[in-house]
């Protein structure tokens, strides 16, 4: 740009016919204000051209679905609104770092007097991003390598790879995600993985190597997912002192299962929501597509939130599940449910409730758990408007039960079994919200209804996680 000399009070000449303000018009602008505003809203415009600048490897036809709506705008405010929505849709694809919208009048020979050109100026994400971390903890060190390739073939496919090489164990995961053009909520995902886990509460070590294919699609207000998974599971004892019941579960098995999940989520946030509800129903059928494991597993999760007076929120949640073996083989410890700990029934040690043998918890085939919380802001509201908003105090009441079922007695006996020997706890604590994914809790808990064999953690208990009761 050249130097601009302001030698007079004349306004600088503006380029662009949409303004058209000349020095002569200044005095009359005030009078023309109201009609001009009307003009903006009522003026009929035609969007002649919508195009995207800055595309590299992205397929342009793939993006037409996202921006097609802009053509239907009829006045300027509508154009601005639809362009904003299109911008959100483009960002949601996860392939652009930045999207900017420029609305201009049409140029060129076929330009109509009320024609507009909308341009989306985008910056694509880099072809490949990588990350490298080292992690140390629990007598083990490991090196974690992550690779992400967004937009591999130009249609918002994403390929991620993570590899963790440790002194004790190695694990990896490769995932490919492809949305349907024009309908981002309908997508397919294929994963290959190997994960190892150590579960000291059961003295169990588990290594899973698996493949899964997942198909998600929305139906009305719900989100549905269909998934096939094939996993080679290897179970072993974590220590020589493991109980014989856990030792009997050691060995290899193959699980091939079909599962379906339905989620309705109307909450305004997944961590510390203020209103709305969540309903999640999941079922899994294993054994009919091959493999050794054969069972039907159902579980559900319900959560309801309601804002009360004084910025406090009342939240109620209910979890439950049932595992039915099909055939005469008993269920495997890797499929059963576990309960207890700072993320479910507070006041009990992690997954240390229910059937056990010599101190090793074996899990149960049926469970239910309920929680009632009252979240309030911190007393005296320190740090209000900033850091203090991440914290909340909560008063809670948790209850639940986990047991095995004696089959052949009918549903009445099952319900009766679950209603006996209920464990419950109450207390209060502080919750810290971490981003939009996780939360930390520090609670003072009083466990009640403790059955023999349960391990409790009364008093102060710390918990970190994603999914809390």
């Amino acid at each position, binding site marked *: 740009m050249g130097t601009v000399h302001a030698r007079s009070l004349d306004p600088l000449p503006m380029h662009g016919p949409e303004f058209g303000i000349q020095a002569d018009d200044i005095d009359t602008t005030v009078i023309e204000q109201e009609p001009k505003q009307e003009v903006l809203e009522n003026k009929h415009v035609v969007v002649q051209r919508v195009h995207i600048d800055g595309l590299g490897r992205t397929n342009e036809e793939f993006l037409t679905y996202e921006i097609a709506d802009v053509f239907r705008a009829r006045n300027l405010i509508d154009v601005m609104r639809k362009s904003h929505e299109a911008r959100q849709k483009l960002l949601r694809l996860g392939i652009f770092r930045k999207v900017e919208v420029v609305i201009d009048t049409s140029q060129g020979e076929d330009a109509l007097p009320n024609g507009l050109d909308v341009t989306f100026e985008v910056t694509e994400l880099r072809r490949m991003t990588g990350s490298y971390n080292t992690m140390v903890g629990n007598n083990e060190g490991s090196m974690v390598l992550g690779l992400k390739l967004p937009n591999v073939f130009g249609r918002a496919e994403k390929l991620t790879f993570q590899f963790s090489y440790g002194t004790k164990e190695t694990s990896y995961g490769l995932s490919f995600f492809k949305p349907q053009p024009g309908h981002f909520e309908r997508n397919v995902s294929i994963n290959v993985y190997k994960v190892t886990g150590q579960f000291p509460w059961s003295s169990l070590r588990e290594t899973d190597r698996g493949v899964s294919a997942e198909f998600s699609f929305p139906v009305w207000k719900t989100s549905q997912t269909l998934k096939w998974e094939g996993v*080679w599971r290897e179970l*072993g*004892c974590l220590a*020589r002192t493991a109980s*014989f019941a856990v*030792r*009997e579960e*050691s*060995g*290899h*098995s*193959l699980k091939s299962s079909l599962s379906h999940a339905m989620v309705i989520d109307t909450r305004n946030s997944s961590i510390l929501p203020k209103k709305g509800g969540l309903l999640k129903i999941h079922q899994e059928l294993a054994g009919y597509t*091959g*493999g*050794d494991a054969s069972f039907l597993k159902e579980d559900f999760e319900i959560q309801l939130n309601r804002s009360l007076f004084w910025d406090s929120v009342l939240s109620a949640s209910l979890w439950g599940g049932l595992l039915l073996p099909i055939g005469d083989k008993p269920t495997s410890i890797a499929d059963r449910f576990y309960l207890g700990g700072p993320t479910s029934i507070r006041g009990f040690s992690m997954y240390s409730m229910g059937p056990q043998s010599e101190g090793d918890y074996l899990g149960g085939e049926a469970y239910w758990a309920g929680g009632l919380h009252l979240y309030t802001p911190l007393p005296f509201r320190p740090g209000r408007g900033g850091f203090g908003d991440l914290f909340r105090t909560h008063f809670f009441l948790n209850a639940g039960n986990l047991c095995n079922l004696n089959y052949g007695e009918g549903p009445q006996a099952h319900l009766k079994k679950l209603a006996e020997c209920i464990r419950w706890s109450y207390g209060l604590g502080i919750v810290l919200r971490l981003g939009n994914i996780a939360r930390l809790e520090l609670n003072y808990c009083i466990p009640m209804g403790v059955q023999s064999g349960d391990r409790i953690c009364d008093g102060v208990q710390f918990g970190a996680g994603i999914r809390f009761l």
Partner: protein
Amino acid sequence: MSLAAEAFVSQMAAAEPWPENATLYQPLKDDQILLSDCASSLAVQAYLRMCCLPVQVVCKANAEYMSPSGRIPFIHVGNQVVSELGPIVQFTKAKGHSLSDGLDDVQRAEMKAYMELVNNMLLTAELYIQWCDDATAAEISRPRYSSPYSWPLNNILAYQKQWEVRRKMNAIGWGGKTLEQVYEDVSQCCQALSQRLGTQPYFFNKQPTELDALVFGHLFTILTTRLTSTELAERIKSYSNLLSFCRRIEQNYFEGKSS
């Protein structure tokens, strides 16, 4: 296990008498168990019968993975889990039952030497024939080993086991041997055993010891197991005193008593 831990376990073991519900675990008898595992398991069963200790044999498909050392067989006695003949002999000794108390030091050393011979020669030969001979591996070992599992896990586990055994054979120098050489080694081992046995009823004259149990386990299993060729069984049959030795132990300890 470290020495201190072993000593501690022996102390704990010595405290309790042999229970009624002691169990021995091995792979499934009809479809899964292989020659080497069957031999080891039979040796332990013979030893426990010679000690007059009751034990119940339970067949489980995942017995190999249940075992603390990964080897068959293992016994579950009270709270203790002990695998393989050597540690089981020590375990029973801690409880006050032993077959080799009457031996002097020279004889004990000799017994240990012969047991090492059987383990290094006979057991290794069995493993070689099962997994390194392609015909046997394809027809018998791999199908049997993987029978409890479904596809594709059965193939993965069978090949994994085969590679593991072949690596081990290479490590101890048996990788380059031919089947004929292995049969020769077996013959030589049997000759040494036959010479030591002579005309006595058991290796150390009147009373059986753990060496007798071990030799019986291996020889009896080889004689009664169907392989792709009968060569191995024929080599053993050429030593008649070993044959009568096997028959004698079978009659005294396995027939007439319900298994």
